[in-house]
């Protein structure tokens, strides 16, 4: 079950992943030497808001506290053509706000472990005001970097990983960097 479609928004991605898991069973979307997981855990929370705000930090900490999401061995770095420009912004944002988000971003930046591919995903244009640039990365996830008209910047990432407890999981993060944090 390959997914080779462009111009999908985040919602389409989630729909497709859910459908793949439900309709296909594990062995149709996992390849490689590892046995297919019995289940897939998906964590979702959209509309993160302003980086550094208390609610954004709280949800970030909650995400980081769940099994697997903060393990260096379980999170795969998203590799994109924007990687060099994306990483400093995300790290600086996290480091300046709270330990939780900083740890998550740092983890995502330092680990690049080969994981069992789920599918190939291509996307562009997220549902957000302004211009969006999204790139695809087979198997390991994607990230995006968007310059907003007001001068802020929206950075986000999706990663795919695995943990002993939950098998494969998908973690999605998005955050807005206000001009003052850039």
């Amino acid at each position, binding site marked *: 079950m390959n997914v080779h479609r462009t111009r999908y928004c985040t919602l389409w991605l*989630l729909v497709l*992943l*859910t459908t793949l*898991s*439900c*309709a296909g069973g594990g062995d149709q979307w996992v390849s490689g030497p590892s046995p297919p997981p019995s289940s897939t855990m998906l964590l979702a*929370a*959209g*509309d993160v808001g302003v980086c550094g705000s208390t609610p*954004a930090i709280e949800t970030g900490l909650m995400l980081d506290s769940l099994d697997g999401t903060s393990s260096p061995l379980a999170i795969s770095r998203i590799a994109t053509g924007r990687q060099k420009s994306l990483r400093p912004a995300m790290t600086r944002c996290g480091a300046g706000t709270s330990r939780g988000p900083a740890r998550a971003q740092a983890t995502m930046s330092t680990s690049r472990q080969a994981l069992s591919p789920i599918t190939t995903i291509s996307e562009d244009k997220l549902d957000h005001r302004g211009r969006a640039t999204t790139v695809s990365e087979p198997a390991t996830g994607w990230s995006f970097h968007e310059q907003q008209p007001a001068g802020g910047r929206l950075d986000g990432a999706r990663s795919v990983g695995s943990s002993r407890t939950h098998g494969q999981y998908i973690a999605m993060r998005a955050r807005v960097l206000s001009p003052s944090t850039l």
Partner: protein
Amino acid sequence: MLYEQGVDVIISAHEHLYERYAPMSPDGQRNDAHGIRQFIVGTGGAGLYTVMRVHPQSEVQIIAHGLLKLTLTAQGYSWDFLQVGGGRTDSGADVCH
């Protein structure tokens, strides 16, 4: 198109709240056999909205920040809305079409 392709679940955000719908047909009517269940999870940290009008098929609305944990298996799925601070949650499970 999603309905015709047998999609089970839609997850979206944009609206700053958590809301879970019953499985619905494209016309908005409940359809447990082939309908699509939607989760709105716009609870990542942005300012929360209030519920102005509840859709007839909306089963749960939670105005709080938190995460949706969706566990997918070959036969079905289960969900848990994990609220920041440990407040009200929403949990359940359903089978795929």
